[in-house]
């Protein structure tokens, strides 16, 4: 392959095996300059491996990695100029915060190394940027998790990287600090304008932060899209169940009709062949039907308060299956009530993995 113009990072047909276990399978991905991209997937999906391949910490068995159109597949990690923030920060324990941040400048060969005072000035500037002014003399063990995260980021930024890669940047932090740091990372991204890729297993994090999300499963890319695209047009059963909550019901498709047991669900089956299938819908897309006649009926098994209303778990009549619905406080059902339900929006996928056909939306 020749030069690939226009992309900050291009990953092309990358495969990597760990022994007999394929960690990445034919992964192709383009990232625009300045984009903030999330690699999202469960553990073992290959997301961290992909990040390490981009950084040059792993050499792929097959495929190529391009930076700004140039083939970087065989470029050693030292020469890639990637800012990498490790999952547990990997700060140098025996160095002060300032020395950690300055490390990338200090180890440069003499020709390109800035002067001592220039390095110190840059370290100070970065300390200010990550709001840790005055803590330059501390050791990593004396910092909180959130502060260490900032030091790791400052250290990565010190080398003026062309891309910023973060592995589970908020994984080890408690929920509050996570929220703050998320917002802050957004700001850092805006301010630096750096092409940024981060790995996460937390779909909220991916959806909140990223311009585009790459959903990985078992070493393959399931879907690449904006958060809206992933929510509204999930490409596979995996995506719809991993991104946001979803309930799946087994159905049969026959002659354009979707049957859930002996009941018919009003879902467009255009392009779908007959046979077993699964219907997916989100708790917000199902409601107690106003008319009193629902597509599915069930009994309220438990109720739980949510910030906005009530979430009811409903046992479906005649099936050993429950589903959850959200309803506003005013007209929440009571425990034990029989409720008729109707679907506002659902997606249907054939049961055989090989035959994904995008079905339309229901009524």
């Amino acid at each position, binding site marked *: 392959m020749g030069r690939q113009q226009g992309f900050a990072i291009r990953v092309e047909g990358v495969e990597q095996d760990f022994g007999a276990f394929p960690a990445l399978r034919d992964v192709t991905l383009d990232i625009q300059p300045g984009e903030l991209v999330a690699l999202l997937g469960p553990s073992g999906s290959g997301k961290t491996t992909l990040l390490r391949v981009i*950084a040059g910490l792993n050499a792929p068995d097959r495929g190529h990695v391009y930076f700004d159109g140039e083939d970087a597949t065989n470029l050693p990690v030292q*020469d890639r100029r990637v800012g*990498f923030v490790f999952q547990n920060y*990997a700060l140098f324990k025996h160095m002060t915060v300032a020395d950690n941040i300055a490390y990338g400048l200090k180890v440069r060969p003499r020709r390109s190394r800035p002067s001592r005072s220039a390095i110190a000035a840059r370290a100070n500037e970065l300390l200010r940027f990550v709001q840790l002014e005055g803590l330059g003399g501390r050791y990593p063990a004396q910092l909180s998790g959130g502060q260490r995260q900032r030091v790791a980021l400052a250290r990565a930024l010190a080398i003026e990287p062309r891309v910023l890669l973060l592995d589970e940047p908020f994984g080890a932090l408690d929920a509050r600090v996570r929220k703050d740091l998320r917002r802050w990372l957004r700001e850092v991204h805006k301010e630096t304008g750096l092409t940024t890729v981060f790995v996460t297993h937390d779909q909220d994090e991916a959806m909140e932060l990223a311009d585009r999300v790459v959903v990985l499963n078992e070493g393959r890319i399931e879907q690449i899209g904006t958060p809206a695209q992933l929510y509204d047009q999930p490409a596979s059963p995996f995506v719809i169940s991993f991104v946001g909550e979803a309930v799946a019901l087994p159905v049969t498709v026959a002659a354009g009709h979707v049957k859930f047991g002996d009941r018919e669900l009003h879902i467009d089956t255009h392009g779908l062949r007959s046979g077993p299938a699964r219907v997916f819908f989100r708790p917000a897309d199902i409601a107690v039907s106003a008319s009193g006649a629902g597509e599915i009926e069930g009994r309220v098994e438990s109720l739980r308060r949510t910030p906005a209303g009530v979430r009811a778990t409903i046992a479906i009549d005649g099936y050993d299956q429950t589903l959850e619905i959200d309803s506003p406080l005013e007209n929440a059902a009571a425990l034990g009530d029989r409720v008729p339900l109707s679907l506002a929006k659902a997606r249907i996928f054939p049961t055989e993995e090989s035959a994904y056909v995008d079905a339309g939306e229901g009524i």
Partner: protein
Amino acid sequence: MSESIAAGVPAARRRARVRPVTQDSPFARYALIATAIAFLSLFLLAPLAVVFYEAGTKGAAAFFEAFQDPDARAAIRLTLLIAAIAVPANLAFGLAAAWSIAKFSFPGKSLLITLIDLPFSVSPVVAGLVYVLLFGSQGLLGGWLTAHGVQIIFAVPGIVLATIFVTFPFVARELIPLMQEQGSVEEEAALTLGASGFKTFLTVTLPNIKWGLLYGVLLCNARAMGEFGAVSVVSGHIRGLTNTIPLQVEILYNEYNNVAAFALSVLLASLALVTLGIKTFLEWRHADALAARGRRH
């Protein structure tokens, strides 16, 4: 009211008798401590005291005269020379072995770990014999070596080889668990920041292992200077030429020259004590350095 008091008494008594599950009875505790101390005194402290006592029986003059003997001086010089060669060799080997075992996975890794422990399980005498069979004049390579005028057995090279053999687990054994525990993520961080492999080693790896490394070197040195069995087989016991301190001690003792034998023994024992002292200091320093990271500023 009276009922609750009555109920309270046995409960309090029970509580007094219940110990945390990890704590033994006072009797067991004292018995164990006493056993350990008695054992140490009998087998370690008493012999050590005897060494110092015997060396001093004829007074300070006799003690110091033992070190004036040219053969004794030669033995000391040789011992220092052997240690000066064997310790750096095993330092290099130990670092390389620990590095490859801790940071890479490769076929034969578990075999390598087993092999590193081999000198611990093989009798040093056997180790010496192997070298004699290999390099001795009747040995496998003996003919070729003699033809080229190289003498290994009954000469310094043989002693160096035997010493390296018996001391080579020390540094590696000390470093492997340390490096395995630390993993390679700090090194990876250094590499992404543009540091070369060698700079990464100097600025990241070495500072993280320096105390363990020093400790390993100390143990290695103590053993290199004190080794008897393997060295005895390959040395040939030529006075003033191939006798190390331990061999010289044996000769002097066999000649009923007790004061001189124990004087040299004091030298070796002092080396052990100094090693112990430095080791304790290092452990204390190490703990302090670790704690200081949480304390300073």
